[in-house]
């Protein structure tokens, strides 16, 4: 499992301020922490970056790779910023990953960049016309992205299909559909297609104390379904790995010695699997 350390995002206030001031300190501190805790790649999310995106992405890539011997996931909708990042990326630490192309025609040219710079690329299975309804629609979009990648000369081994994780607080039924999509994606090629998720979106909008719980247990379920990579907090995922056996035991119908843990896992799995309706206080019921 490849963990793509997620904490370097423009959405986080501290990171945004560091990006504006070009203050390397906080960026490198977070990158180092994500690396030490098990990330195999670092996500650099600079947002739409309409002004100064090229310079910002280059600064991010070099700032990260100055202190961490890892490749970078270039996370922006700005085509020029991605290209600028690819130009300075140090491939000695591994090949970069572009986040992302999709079935939206505006995102097709991203594949040109992947081919030109020999980069890997995430294929987000959404089109222009709204969110996919189920796993089948996600797979249909994946097939179109794969066909297009071949046209542009991007090998299928370099594509990570992303089924788009949605918030459990508002789109509970999609939690299982995403797991199903991860299984379907792998069937679409031999060797199996690689897959990736933006994990923490599952708990976006949920109370702070339950976010890590949902993130961890959902991660284990996706892992069991064959997930290749996750954009996630490496620290949380290390914890998830420690709890994997407990979760697998509950999934196998065993009773845990720790009753409180058993309840927490059972209730959370029931919410993920749609057996009980989600509410912010689901753990208290």
């Amino acid at each position, binding site marked *: 499992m490849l963990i793509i350390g997620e904490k370097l995002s423009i959405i986080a206030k501290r990171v945004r301020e560091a990006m504006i001031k070009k203050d390397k300190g906080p960026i490198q501190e977070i990158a180092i922490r994500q690396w030490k805790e098990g990330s195999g790649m670092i996500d650099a999310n600079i947002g739409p970056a309409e002004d100064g995106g090229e310079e910002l992405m280059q600064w991010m890539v070099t700032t990260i790779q100055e202190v961490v011997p890892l490749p970078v996931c270039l996370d922006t909708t700005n085509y020029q910023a991605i290209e600028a990042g690819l130009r300075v990326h140090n491939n000695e630490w591994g090949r970069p990953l572009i986040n992302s192309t999709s079935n939206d025609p505006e995102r097709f040219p991203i594949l040109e960049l992947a081919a030109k710079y020999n980069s890997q690329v995430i294929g987000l299975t959404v089109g222009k016309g709204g969110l996919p309804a189920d796993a089948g629609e996600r797979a249909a979009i994946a097939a179109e992205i794969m066909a297009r990648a071949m046209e542009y000369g991007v090998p299928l081994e370099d594509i990570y299909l992303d089924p788009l994780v949605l918030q459990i*607080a*508002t789109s*509970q039924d999609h939690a299982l559909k995403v797991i199903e999509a991860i299984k379907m994606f792998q069937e679409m090629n031999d060797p199996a297609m690689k897959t990736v998720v933006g994990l923490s979106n599952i708990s976006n909008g949920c109370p702070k104390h339950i976010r890590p719980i949902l993130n961890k247990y959902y991660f284990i379920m996706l892992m069991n379904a064959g997930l290749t990579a996750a954009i996630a907090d490496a620290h949380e995922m290390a914890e998830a790995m420690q709890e994997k056996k407990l979760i697998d035991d509950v999934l196998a119908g065993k009773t845990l010695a720790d009753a409180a843990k058993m309840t927490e896992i059972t209730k959370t799995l029931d919410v993920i699997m749609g*057996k*009980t*309706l*989600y*509410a*912010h*206080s689901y753990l*208290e*019921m």
Partner: protein
Amino acid sequence: MAFVAPKETYSGKVFEVTIGADKTAVFGGENVLPFYSFEGNVPHKPVIAYEIQDVPPEDWPETVKNVYEGVSGDPVTWAKYCQDKLNAQAIALRLVGTHPDRENRSSEDAAKTVKDVLSAINVPLIILGSNHIEKDSSVLVAVSEAAKGKNCIIGKAQEGNYKTIAAAAMANNHKLIAMSELDINLSKQLNILITQMGFDKERLITDPMCSALGYGLEYTYSVMERIRLAALAQNDATMQPPMLADVGMYVWKIKETQASEADLPMWGSLKERGIAWETVTAGSLLISGAEFLIMRHPEAIAAVEKFIEELM
């Protein structure tokens, strides 16, 4: 081999709620989808309450205002008219005059109106605030006390004011409407928060927020349907209180119930149009799972009662 119709059975059941002190009304109690009496037990018909107000209905359209001409100037007369002349099973008194942007009537005035109405009728009373978060939290406390012992429904408790309103309803032994804004997860969450205060879940009524035909009815429909399925198929106790469809106030403010025949001749009779709109909105929400309705026009109510008779 004879055909045997497949039957769905559910592990959950909707709570049965009894309201009123003298004459009572009962709704809920079913363990199947709405009107599916061929699959299980549907012990009670949905109940319809006639809506009245603490102040004259100046803002109601003519079609529905005219029906109450001569009685709607005074809530006691209006309530008695609904009970004695229209055979109302229940009456819903909306204290819209307490809203700060309206007459801004005080909690004391509201409490007096409630007492006067209660002493004039013997059918169950539903007491509704003006849907102003802060004002409702004082008005509904005062009227809960004024109606002590009458087993009323108090409403509506929302995320921003449920604590004081639920505490008052609990202290005075009333039922309580919990309203959230068209979101099944928030509806469940509010029911959880209210029961965590010690309020008995079997005394709750869920209002997932109503909407009129053409104005988002399908959202209300779908949330209600999913709430009912969670109650029955998942046996989710937090979703087992009966549901309210507060139809009248949403229907009688839209263009279709107000635009004149002179302006829009192709829309047909204004009177028929309004009544039909309230009937169809109410009927749809009964099918999606509402057990309790608040409505305004007697002819729409009669049509919906006939619809219920035919489906039961």
